[in-house]
């Protein structure tokens, strides 16, 4: 964890500013992305620990009746799996949202809920990057748009995208979606068991479950200031809704920690 932060910090260049609205040259955007990522890393890794991400287990229908398990991990308590109703459109009970707030950075507008974006990047001026084959340890794939990996992402490998990341295989390494600040970005994988997940300024690690990761595709997104992992079903994809975010991901505000 520290090592990642340190190396990112080492790459840090001076602060960059932008006044435009998505009119920058790709190189400038790229540089900006790197800068923001490194700054994010520098602040994020100042925290003692990376919070555990919440995972919604099982089929949505069977989960619907269960009450949510609120609360953030106490010191020394690693295994935290938060179950919640996999209802993407409904209101979130405040207790749940508040439960983990202190463990995460919140950069959502007050009272608002994340705007979910479709996986389909139609209409974007930044095409997706398709990576064929396994991304092995030591390799880093960066792209100022969406990244699709036709293969596995192994431990020690990093995939960093300005927008969504889709892994058509097993994600075991680190994935950072929305790396330029887009907190509506998602990470989808055939098998989701990452070393660490980052979405915009949110960082989470998987719960240390004895049973391992589920044997079905999952999708990670930020909901109410928490990285949540849900079973990936066609139903939920259709509810992700259209891309309603600004075309300029850099314009998303990134706040420093309290």
């Amino acid at each position, binding site marked *: 964890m520290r090592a990642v932060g340190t190396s990112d910090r080492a790459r840090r260049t001076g602060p960059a500013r932008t006044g435009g609205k998505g009119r920058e040259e790709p190189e400038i955007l790229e540089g900006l992305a790197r800068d923001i990522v490194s700054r994010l890393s520098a602040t994020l890794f100042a925290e003692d620990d990376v919070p555990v991400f919440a995972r919604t287990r099982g089929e949505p229908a069977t989960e619907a009746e269960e009450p949510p398990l609120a609360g953030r991990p106490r010191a020394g308590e690693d295994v935290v799996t938060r179950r919640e109703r996999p209802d993407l459109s409904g209101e979130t009970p405040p207790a749940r949202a508040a439960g983990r707030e202190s463990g995460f950075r919140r950069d959502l507008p007050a009272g608002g809920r994340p705007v979910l974006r479709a996986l389909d990047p139609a209409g974007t001026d930044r095409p997706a990057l398709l990576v064929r*084959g*396994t991304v092995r*340890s*030591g390799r880093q794939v960066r792209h100022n748009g969406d990244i699709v990996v036709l293969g*596995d992402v*192994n*431990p*020690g490998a990093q995939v960093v995208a300005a927008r969504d990341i889709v892994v058509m295989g097993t994600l*075991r390494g680190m994935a950072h979606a929305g790396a330029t600040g887009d907190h509506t970005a998602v990470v989808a994988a055939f098998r989701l068991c990452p070393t660490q997940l980052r979405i915009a300024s949110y960082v989470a690690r998987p719960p240390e479950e004895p049973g391992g990761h589920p044997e079905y595709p999952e999708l990670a997104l930020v909901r109410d200031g928490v990285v949540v992992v849900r079973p990936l079903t066609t139903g939920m994809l259709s509810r992700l809704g259209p891309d309603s975010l600004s075309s300029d991901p850099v314009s998303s505000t990134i706040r420093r920690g309290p």
Partner: protein
Amino acid sequence: MRQPGQVIVITSGKGGVGKTTATANIGTALALLGHRVALVDADIGLRNLDVVMGLENRIVYDLVDVVEGFARVRQALIKDKRFEGLYLLPAAQTRDKSAVSPLQMKSVCDELKADFDFVIVDSPAGIEQGFRNAIAGAERAVIVTTPEVAAVRDADRIIGLLEADGMAEPQLILNRIRHQMVRRGDMMDIDDVIEILAIDLLGIVPEDEAIIVSTNRGDPAVTSSASRAGLAFKNIARRLRGEVVPFLQLDEARGLLARLSRIMKLSSG
């Protein structure tokens, strides 16, 4: 005119997983099968292969002498004390990896493969120049790993580097498997390792105390018929030359031993 041999690099990324032991045993096993084999120690500055082969006291010239023009390849090659057709090109102990360039290494390998059926290069640990040298002349790569998370991680990195270098389909040796620990769930499963690394399995070598004894004695384990690891390395050598050999059933051996010990107990009790 004879067909040129093939150059195979044995590498791992992580140190201590059994590259040198694998090189010595596979080379010896191939010589036992009647092939002409040259072993090349690319670990300049930390040479070990000569010790494991029991040939340390015969070194006159080494790899660095060859690339610097002080000796011809033929002069530096040491003939094995046991097997016809088995030779060692030792590394220099007094220099370091920068004494040889990948290009020089490639020309040495090319020269060797004109004379030998198999040229087996023992790579140093790491991903720096020593590794670059070791793979420079090789057309095949064998990755050695143990079922430990760190070793598998490094093996994965090495596979990525080899792929980037254009090396076709590296193969995997899974070394030091302890079947009982795997069964208890205390050791990574063979399938887990294969799933992550996603390359062809060349062989599975069980943990075997005989390896430590034979390594210290300078007598590769394949020369002993009693060693399970030696048998595994013999099978690997046969697969390297294209034979189809079924994998050792690790639990079967345990079963036989257990049965034997039960019989012993019955007769004594």
